[in-house]
């Protein structure tokens, strides 16, 4: 028992658990053909939470180790500027329709989620965590924190939204008769962030590139738009 107590108290152990679980779930996801339903992050969260509950470990103890990974989210968010710049150089002549689609999509995503959840009596903390659900977790975690929501709930909802986007997009494209690869990719990036972008690559490289552009644009735009929208809707 003492052996366990010694290692569990060491931040190193939770660092190792996090990275090992993620490598294993990524491998599993590749073996299963990359299905968004068993996204490595979703499966990792499930496994780690079960492990912590079984060993009676608190989230605070876990985070003492995991914070070293969490810290890298800051510089990684800044680094999103690099792929955004690459795409920007290619599409700057068509920036207006892309910006318009991104802004309309981002406002639709946040406003409709807020209104539906509010109509169904969701609590304030839930509302403020659901608002950034269609942007990459890198940005959503920070946005939820700034709005007064729960960063961890936000990151979970972001992942569910990503999986939903990948499932809903193909039938909607069929109904609306959307056949263009760039439109399909960009739409996936706006509605389902990085998971949608990864999915868009299955339509082709161009769809993936437009998905990446959409993810970056939507994330940046949403971070500035949400505080206004939330106060406009009288939430918080």
């Amino acid at each position, binding site marked *: 028992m003492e052996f366990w107590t010694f290692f569990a108290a060491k931040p190193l152990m939770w660092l190792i658990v996090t990275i090992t679980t993620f490598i294993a779930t990524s491998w599993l996801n590749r073996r299963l053909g990359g299905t968004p339903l068993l996204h490595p992050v979703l499966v990792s969260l499930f496994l780690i939470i079960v492990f912590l509950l079984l060993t009676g470990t608190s989230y605070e103890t876990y985070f003492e180790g995991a914070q070293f990974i969490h810290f890298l989210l800051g510089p990684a968010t800044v680094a999103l500027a690099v792929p955004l710049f690459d795409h920007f150089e290619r599409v700057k002549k068509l920036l207006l329709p*892309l910006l318009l689609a991104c802004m309309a999509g981002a406002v639709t995503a946040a406003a409709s989620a807020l209104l539906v959840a509010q109509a169904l009596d969701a609590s304030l903390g839930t509302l403020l965590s659901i608002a950034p659900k269609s942007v990459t977790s890198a940005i959503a975690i920070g946005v939820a924190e700034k709005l007064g929501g729960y960063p961890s709930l936000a*990151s979970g909802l972001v992942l569910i939204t990503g999986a939903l986007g990948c499932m809903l997009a193909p039938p909607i494209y069929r109904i609306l008769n959307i056949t263009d690869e760039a439109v399909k990719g960009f739409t996936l990036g706006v509605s389902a962030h990085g998971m949608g972008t990864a999915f868009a690559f299955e339509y082709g490289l*161009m769809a993936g590139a437009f998905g990446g552009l959409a993810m970056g644009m939507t994330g940046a735009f949403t971070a500035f738009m949400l505080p206004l929208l939330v106060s406009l809707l009288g939430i918080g």
Partner: protein
Amino acid sequence: MLIGFLILLLFQFAGELIVVVSGLPVPGPVVGMVLLLAGLIVKGDVPDYLRIPSEALLKHLALLFVPAGVGLMTHFGLLQQDWLAILTALIISTALTIVVTALILNPSARKLQALSQSEPGEDDR
């Protein structure tokens, strides 16, 4: 590599500083990202010493979401209470977002096609 990583941290720091001074309700790293994007647009290209650490970080971006996500274990009560509202809101709003974005962008589909098929140097007219 190290210089590039330092640049990312400095831009994040600048972003955090702007947020603190201005009271803007936006995450510091997002402001840092916008600053870096502006810097890259002015400079005109991405130097390798910045591209290499940036792409290394972004390649493993998904791993970085795990520590925050595990915090879900502290919100079981909230999930139990709000799960129906959450699920309904996510499904409706994700479907609506796809419809709105695709319908707005679809009229420009042919132009997007032409643009992506042109060679990178070709569109510098």
